[in-house]
């Protein structure tokens, strides 16, 4: 709210007071010397002194100042954190204060993107490119003005010293990180939605019917589950016979792999079986590539560069050990993109390989002996008859936390098989 903003503004103004404010000095950023900057430590120390608060509170308050854009980091501008070390920070110009009653306008954003685009072709990242073209359509009537301002601002900045240029660039970048304007405007949105391919209701609704029918016997609430529902009978067999690493899977589980390619890949056992099949067909590199791309997409940001290098070395480089066959256009785009790696850089290639497997390898797998044998030897557990005495209940045990994944999970789960019915008096029914 407004009061919150002015509260922080009061702090910021106090921090810049010529007498009692922060002592700013030159800070080094790589080889450039940035004037009028301070370190994260400086900020925290000053807050502690001025407001007589603890370090924890000072860190919290300082963190808010960065989050709300009143102070921005010179190093790692995308990480809006206040680090309690010698990381350099600067004050944001009041024009860019978040509390300003004039929110980030599309005009400002357009000028910013135009500058970036003019300064270096290809410097705009994906979402920025899309925003740029949306804005171009939306505020087309101002475009001459936008481009003119962008050019003039760039010209003026060329005449500045390097340190000042860096400061101004960081200043802007920080602002636009915090204040991404909503570029989803009705006009452009409607134009794109008009052009979208829509499917007839009859086709869509039929698919719901088919899906529900197909999964009916797999839905425990609709059809029960074998040998019994653990929540009712307190017998956890149903869970034990369906673990990831069980020796022989249940029939329902193997059947489900034939419902869709996604079902097969989502089941770790299904994926394992599919890999065995692909190895026989000498196309296992496709699945390995897909797995590596998933790992890249969903993994830690810090490992992205390393992983991209690995993927390139193993799957894309000429003569790679597990070279994947992608169409030349996608390959070209991917190799170009690798020069500036990010987590989505393999998306196009990954999707190409995914649909390749889905269209060719997957249907063949379902017709293969490997799959048919799996289906044949899969178990169908017998339904456990209800206890004669409904009030005799089994002891319940807490299951071990997944946080304790050990060899133990690989030892158990040996097929309980279509064993005898009736009350098994196993009270040690835990994994």
């Amino acid at each position, binding site marked *: 709210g407004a009061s919150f903003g002015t509260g922080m503004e009061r702090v910021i103004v106090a921090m810049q007071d010529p007498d009692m404010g922060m002592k700013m000095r030159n800070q080094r950023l790589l080889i450039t010397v940035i004037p009028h900057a301070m370190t994260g430590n400086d900020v925290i120390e000053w807050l502690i002194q001025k407001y007589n608060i603890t370090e924890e509170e000072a860190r919290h308050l300082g963190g808010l100042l960065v989050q709300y854009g009143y102070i921005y980091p010179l190093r790692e501008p995308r990480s*809006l954190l206040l680090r309690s070390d010698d990381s350099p920070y600067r004050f944001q110009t009041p024009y860019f204060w978040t509390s300003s009653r004039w929110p980030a*306008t599309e005009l400002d954003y357009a000028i910013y993107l135009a500058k970036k685009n003019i300064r270096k072709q290809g410097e705009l990242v994906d979402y920025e490119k*899309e925003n740029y073209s949306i804005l171009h359509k939306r505020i087309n*009537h*101002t475009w001459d003005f936008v481009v*003119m301002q962008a050019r003039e601002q760039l010209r003026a900045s060329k005449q500045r010293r390097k340190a000042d240029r860096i400061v101004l660039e960081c200043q802007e970048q920080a602002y636009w990180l915090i204040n991404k304007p909503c570029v989803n405007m009705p006009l452009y949105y409607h134009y794109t939605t008009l052009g979208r391919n829509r*499917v007839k209701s009859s086709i869509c609704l039929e698919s719901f019917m088919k899906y529900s029918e197909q999964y009916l016997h797999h839905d425990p609430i609709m059809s029960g589950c074998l040998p019994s*529902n653990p929540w009712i009978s307190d017998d956890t067999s149903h869970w034990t016979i369906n673990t990831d690493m069980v020796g022989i899977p249940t029939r329902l589980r193997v059947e489900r792999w034939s419902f869709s390619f996604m079902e097969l890949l989502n089941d770790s056992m299904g994926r394992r079986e599919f890999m065995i099949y692909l190895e026989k067909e000498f196309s296992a590199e496709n699945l390995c590539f897909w797995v590596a791309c998933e790992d890249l997409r969903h993994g830690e940001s810090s490992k992205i560069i390393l992983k991209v290098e690995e993927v390139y070395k193993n799957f894309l480089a000429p003569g790679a050990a597990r070279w994947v066959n992608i169409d030349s256009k996608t390959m070209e785009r991917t190799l170009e993109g690798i020069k500036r790696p990010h987590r989505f850089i393999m998306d196009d290639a990954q999707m190409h390989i995914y649909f390749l497997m889905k269209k060719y390898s997957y249907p063949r797998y379902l017709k293969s002996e490997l799959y048919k044998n799996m289906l044949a030897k899969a178990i169908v557990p017998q339904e456990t008859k209800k206890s004669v005495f409904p009030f005799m209940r089994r002891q319940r045990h807490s299951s071990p*936390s997944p946080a304790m994944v050990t060899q133990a999970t690989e030892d158990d789960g040996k097929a309980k098989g279509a064993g005898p019915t009736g009350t098994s008096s196993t009270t040690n029914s835990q994994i």
Partner: protein
Amino acid sequence: MCDQTFLAITFGPCDSCSENRPLMNLYIKTEPINYCSLCMEIMACQGLASGETLKSLKAESETLRKKLEEERKKLHDVELEKVAEKAEALGELNMKTRRTLKGHGNKVLCMDWCKDKRRIVSSSQEHAVTMPTTWVMACAYAPSGCAIACGGLDNKCSVYPLSLDKDENLAAKKKSVAMHTNYLSGCTFTNSDMQILTSSGDGTSALWDVESGQLLQSFHGHSADVLTLDLAPSETGNTFVSGGSDKKANVWDLRSGQNVQSFDTHDSDINCVKYYPSGDAFASASDDSTCRLFDLRADREVSIYSKDSIMFGAASVDFSLSGRLLFAGYNDYTINVWDVLKGTRVAILFGHENRVSSLRVSPDGTAFCSGSWDNTLRVRQEGRGVGRELKQGGTTLYG
């Protein structure tokens, strides 16, 4: 303000309107002058094409909107109820409470299942030592089962690694990941423990890197609080849906941050959104006391689940494994079970003594759990057996 710091006059009288405002350099014939933001806009708009005004732009928007509605109608050749006539009717559903979890000292606000199908994490409005604030409104289990994420009125989403040592102070290992400028309404891990997707009262959703706390992508488009979100179970795993106080449900592309589809047929806040298991549709629960089904390929609402006798808002929904049943928790303390295809209600479940705030089916579909403002969680399952209520201490509770 120190001029040297900012290399220009930053605050003062605007050269155009003379008001004291934050200023920016404006270039007219290469000479910089100082304009405020408002005057900048006016300068820029002087380039409006002749005849074009803000009014005419708005009219164009309206015409397009109408055209869109017509296009959508053309493809709507049949209603779901008609298609569902040939589906088998459902027998009587007899769901009983199998476990009642009474570990919370206050309202249960949110819950999530672990992928191991038996553990649950739940959060509540609690004076807990571990959290700096009382209302924990969102919680989620990590796919590995080794961590949980939660947050609420502290505007943050924090990740806590789970420990085997019951005495260990979880708060000590807490990691603040997401930071919003208003309360956290929802959170979920994406396909790994490394990324979290959050929704917030500040009107945005965001994708975060857990390790560094870095913001990877933010999603702007709701004009009010975002109350709920759900990740799509699609092959390419690239989209999610969010619902808000602006009565809209928006579908987003994770990679680009773009709003790719929007549905605005609800009459009030959307409290919960959940994808249909195939990923081709999603259901919503709203304060307008209805739940609805939206088809993504037909790009429209295809079913409304409502009854005159249901007058209170719906807070939470989830599908059974096959997508045939929709469980919905309401503010009148009940849970209604709907036949998704036929649109009829197949059961009404009682048992909670206050609002049902959250509801989720277990990952393998063997049961569903509901959390309530009556401080309990109930795990329910079909069956003609005698339902037993127990004080179960074996599940993980967090609050």
